[in-house]
């Protein structure tokens, strides 16, 4: 067991509303939605027609660029509606569940004996393939290429993050299976990132792994931080990453030979009267989950964590692979002389508000910007919360002026949005770091293909 790698730069945002370690039962609900917007860089093409029946695992849409990558229904039932936005952009495909959960009868290959091609075929057919991501760009892995290396993080350090030791408590076998599958299809040992501060009996003895331990503030648990510390991605290299719960689900698929998308996510946030863990299906309506559990009405519901998650309506649908749903207050109020006040209830990475005198305090943060967007004035803020060996502010500036050479030189291939989410949080000039970065990543991907 090597020495843990210390992540020195970063920030834990002390939010109220951590998930209690309890399973909350929620009724599954009737409506489910598949959202192509959960994925970057795909062009969705719908195959399901309204009012036709689907089973668990029936293909609903696919990616035009990679027709073999299927996106499948998590439930059995009837396709109810196809929601399109501006320019006919496909937003949601809504499926009404019949409650029977009848699965498609694909032949699921034996992962111990079959070739990697067959395993990949099963993953593609069942709609499990999109659970494997690829860097650079943070997109769905390309089934036709092999990665240069593979990384999996076993813990999440983001604010209000779920505890995978709790979620995956009884899934040791599934994890082992998932690891073997991943090893088989990639032919690479998997770099597994462990939290050095907790007991890791669940993850320590998984097959085909190279274990690294990390300690320190967020983003220590981000796979991007771990990649950068162990084996930074060079231009032209490909790294696959899989969320640890996705990996267990993949393992379950091959062990049980049953298509089952169910996952456990954390219900968190200061405005959630009851917090805990819920068993859900991807695309499930948030209505039943939040039902009577909100402590007030003017809230923002986030599928994912407060730094990188997506805003959804109170009766909106969960994203495909987020591990938490979080409810925080909206910040749509005016505050008289807010910038002049001592600010005991305001959280800041700087010490410009007196709240810094109360370490350990937890905050009920809302969605207010706390100021207007400005040109960059302060410097060195991003560096203090970004442990990666890059110059984040210089990189973002290169992205702003769309200078591809500069972006490459400054290491854009090593990051995706979540790696720079903290920079966006602390930014005094209120720059939209994540969307600036995403725009450039998309542009770069287009240019390079």
């Amino acid at each position, binding site marked *: 067991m090597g020495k843990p790698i210390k992540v020195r730069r970063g920030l834990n945002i002390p939010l109220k509303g951590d998930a209690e370690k309890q399973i909350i039962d929620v009724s599954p609900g009737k409506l489910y939605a598949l959202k192509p917007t959960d994925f970057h860089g795909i062009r969705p093409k719908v195959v399901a027609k309204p009012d036709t029946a689907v089973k668990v695992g029936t293909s609903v849409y696919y990616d035009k660029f990679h027709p073999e990558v299927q996106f499948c229904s998590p439930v059995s039932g009837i396709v109810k509606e196809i929601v399109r936005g501006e320019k006919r952009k496909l937003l949601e495909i809504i499926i009404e569940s019949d409650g029977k959960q009848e699965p498609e009868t694909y032949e699921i290959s034996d992962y111990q004996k079959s070739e990697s091609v067959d395993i990949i075929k099963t993953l593609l057919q069942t709609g499990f393939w999109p659970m494997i991501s690829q860097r650079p760009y943070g997109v769905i892995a390309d089934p036709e290429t092999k990665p240069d290396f593979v990384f999996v993080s076993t813990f999440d350090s983001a*604010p209000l993050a779920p505890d995978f030791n709790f979620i995956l408590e009884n899934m040791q076998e599934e994890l082992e299976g998932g690891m073997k599958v991943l090893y088989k299809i990639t032919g690479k040992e998997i770099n597994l990132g462990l939290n050095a501060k907790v007991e890791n009996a669940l993850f320590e003895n998984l097959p085909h792994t190279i274990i690294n331990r990390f300690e320190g503030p967020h983003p220590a648990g981000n796979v991007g931080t771990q990649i950068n510390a162990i084996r930074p991605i*060079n231009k032209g290299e490909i790294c696959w990453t899989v969320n640890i719960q996705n990996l267990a689900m993949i393992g379950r698929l091959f062990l049980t030979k049953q298509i089952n998308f169910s996952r456990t996510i954390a219900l968190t946030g200061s405005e959630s009267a009851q917090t805990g863990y819920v068993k859900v299906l991807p695309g499930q309506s948030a209505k039943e989950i939040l039902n009577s559990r909100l402590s007030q009405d003017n809230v923002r519901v986030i599928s994912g964590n407060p730094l990188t998650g997506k805003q959804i309506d109170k009766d909106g649908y969960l994203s495909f692979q987020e591990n938490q749903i979080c409810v925080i207050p909206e910040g749509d109020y005016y*505050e008289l002389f807010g910038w002049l006040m001592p600010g005991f209830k305001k959280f800041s990475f700087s010490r410009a508000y007196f709240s810094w005198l109360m370490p350990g305090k937890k905050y009920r943060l809302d969605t207010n910007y706390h*100021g207007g967007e*400005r040109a*960059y004035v302060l*410097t*060195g803020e991003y560096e203090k919360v970004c442990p990666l060996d890059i110059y984040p502010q210089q990189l973002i500036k290169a992205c702003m002026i769309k200078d591809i050479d500069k972006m490459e030189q400054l290491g854009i291939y090593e990051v995706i*949005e979540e790696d720079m989410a903290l920079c966006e949080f602390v930014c005094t000039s*209120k720059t939209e770091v994540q969307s600036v970065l995403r725009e450039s990543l998309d542009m770069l991907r287009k240019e390079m293909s």
Partner: protein
Amino acid sequence: MSKLRRTVDKIKPHFQKGGKFEKLHSTFDAFETMLFVSNHTTKSGAHIRDAMDMKRTMLVVIIALVPSLLFGIYNTGHQHFLAMGENPEFWPAVWYGLLKVLPIIIVSYVVGLAIEFTFAQIRGHEVNEGFLVSGFLIPLIMPADVPLWMVAVATAFAVIIGKEVFGGTGMNILNPALTARAFLFFAYPAWMSGDKVWIGGMVDGQTLDAFSGATPLAQAAAGNTGFSLGNGAGIDTMDMIIGNIPGSIGETSKIAILIGAAILIITRVGSLRIMLSMLAGGISMGLILNAFAVNPFMEIPWWEHLLIGSFLFGMVFMATDPVTASQTAKGKVIYGFLVGFLAILIRVLNPAYPEGTMLAILLMNVFAPLIDHYVVQGNIKKRMKRLKTT
């Protein structure tokens, strides 16, 4: 509060697109956001944001400057009455200082903000808060007896040529406050470097004829290192620390400056890195000069350099300006060290411009992007090397 909010909401439509005063949108916005932190909520990316914004940042710097201002006001009166041959009393000194300093502050703010608002209006931008600090700094680095019209001209020059032509706050290359000071220094050298301008009322001949208003720095430059006030009383180290010596309004009291430094460091608004490295640079040059001393100025002990002139004020409030300093952590260390190093070098070895701090900071402002370039290039090279070896 809600009543005030209602009033603002009522007049707001007039300033928005299609309203009667559409052209004054930026101005309205500036006042509205000064009254109320806006109700804008996050649309993309992180849903929660740090409570820190530009207004708060500038407020912290202003608070850090207040001790220097207060002492400056008192000291202006104190020096005035000393030069009159009177025994200065506290309240009359404060009153005189207030009458002298307040108009300078008003002129600096009115001229600067008028230009800022105009430019924001023309560009259709929100008004930037940057000048709130620059407008406060300019009076503090002026000599007490500077004519108000000079302050106005210098401020206008600094804001337009020093900042707005580059694109406004955040885009400027030179520190605006120091640009104002440098402008006066080179445009009106007779005024700005004489012995009279440092003491209120001296230029108008209100003071004793025989009284010299030379600052310790000017005395040192003249080879006289046993510092004294105009009335012949000696200036000891304690006087220079407390600050009851002639000099620019805000620079004399080292205690007040250090209080400001503490505020900047604790709140993490000012860069400790730059301050410490500049200190190290100044001390190094001081030691070198001591080692090769051939004249009285070079013999001044290294630590005394930190107390005379504006070295400390420049270190805490000018060199740390994030826009014009180096931006990378390593760059800040190099930048700070060179500012300190050059400040003392220019001060001692260039008899024409004894105020080395101002020139050193401005010079390094110009070189800061170059320093950053090489620091960032180091990171890029590392990446290239990695690419080659794999």
